[in-house]
């Protein structure tokens, strides 16, 4: 029986993973949040329509993947929303404003460099640093080998280090 409790359980279990998948694809936290919400809403509607979903996690990930593609193409997303940079530079109550601005500038450059990485590398980085998954777990989630995860992580870190060095970002680390 699919009910609210089961829905809540699935959200607790897979919500962050769905968010991470959408984020890794578009590097937009707001879009990723909207994708996550819409994916779960569709799951609920599918249940209401008596659709049999044998593997909710796989179903959610597939829906989220399609939604991330579709939403990125829409004019609303291209023209209608504030970029996430705007949110990041808002100073926190207990942060030193100078430090905060410096950090935001570093993050801005880091995001720009992350966007240049292959999507597969970004995906591994997101699972590693956003969800704090270890390497075997990432390999399981992405259905790739542990060696492939190590390789992608190492390659991505190296590229980022090189590019950030070239941009002079290392001084602020």
């Amino acid at each position: 029986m699919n009910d609210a409790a089961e829905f809540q359980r699935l959200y607790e279990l897979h919500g962050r993973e769905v968010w991470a998948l959408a984020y890794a694809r578009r590097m937009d936290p707001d879009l990723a949040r909207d994708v996550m919400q819409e994916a779960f809403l569709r799951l609920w509607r599918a249940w209401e329509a008596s659709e049999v979903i044998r593997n909710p996690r796989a179903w959610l990930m597939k829906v989220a993947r399609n939604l991330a593609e579709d939403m990125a193409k829409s004019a609303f997303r291209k023209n209608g929303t504030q970029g996430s940079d705007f949110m990041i530079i808002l100073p926190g109550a207990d942060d030193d404003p100078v430090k905060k601005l410096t950090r935001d500038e570093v993050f801005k450059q880091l995001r720009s460099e992350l966007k240049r990485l292959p999507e597969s590398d970004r995906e591994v980085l997101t699972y590693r640093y956003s969800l704090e998954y270890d390497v075997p777990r990432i390999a399981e989630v992405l259905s790739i080998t542990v060696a492939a995860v190590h390789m992608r992580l190492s390659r991505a870190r190296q590229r980022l280090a090189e590019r950030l060095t070239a941009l002079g970002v290392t001084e602020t680390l």
Partner: protein
Amino acid sequence: MPPSEGDIDRLLTEFFRAQQPNPWPTIAPPDSEAREIRPLLKMATPKRAGMPGRWALAASILILAVTSIWLAGLAPTPRTGPDVNLNITDADLRLKSSPVSGPAPPTKAEEKTGTPKDKKK
């Protein structure tokens, strides 16, 4: 000097933490009234929605093909060859249209006399 792996690790951890919604949003199953409300974001049409259009196109092409074949079947085919006789007289037509090709059935008078009129003559 390039950043160490530890520096990159720390930077990435900070960055990805900052990207996550904080606080993490809660979710509740929508009730029936909420489902009537249109979502704030207009979602693009799912890929599967393109299928009816493709089916309609395929059906149109099929109907067009069947109709053209049917119309071609209705058109009269010109008959040529030695068996066609264009000099048919009215007598020929009458002869062809008579249902029985043999001699005419005897009339009542003939039945009485037992002799057909032709034979009298």
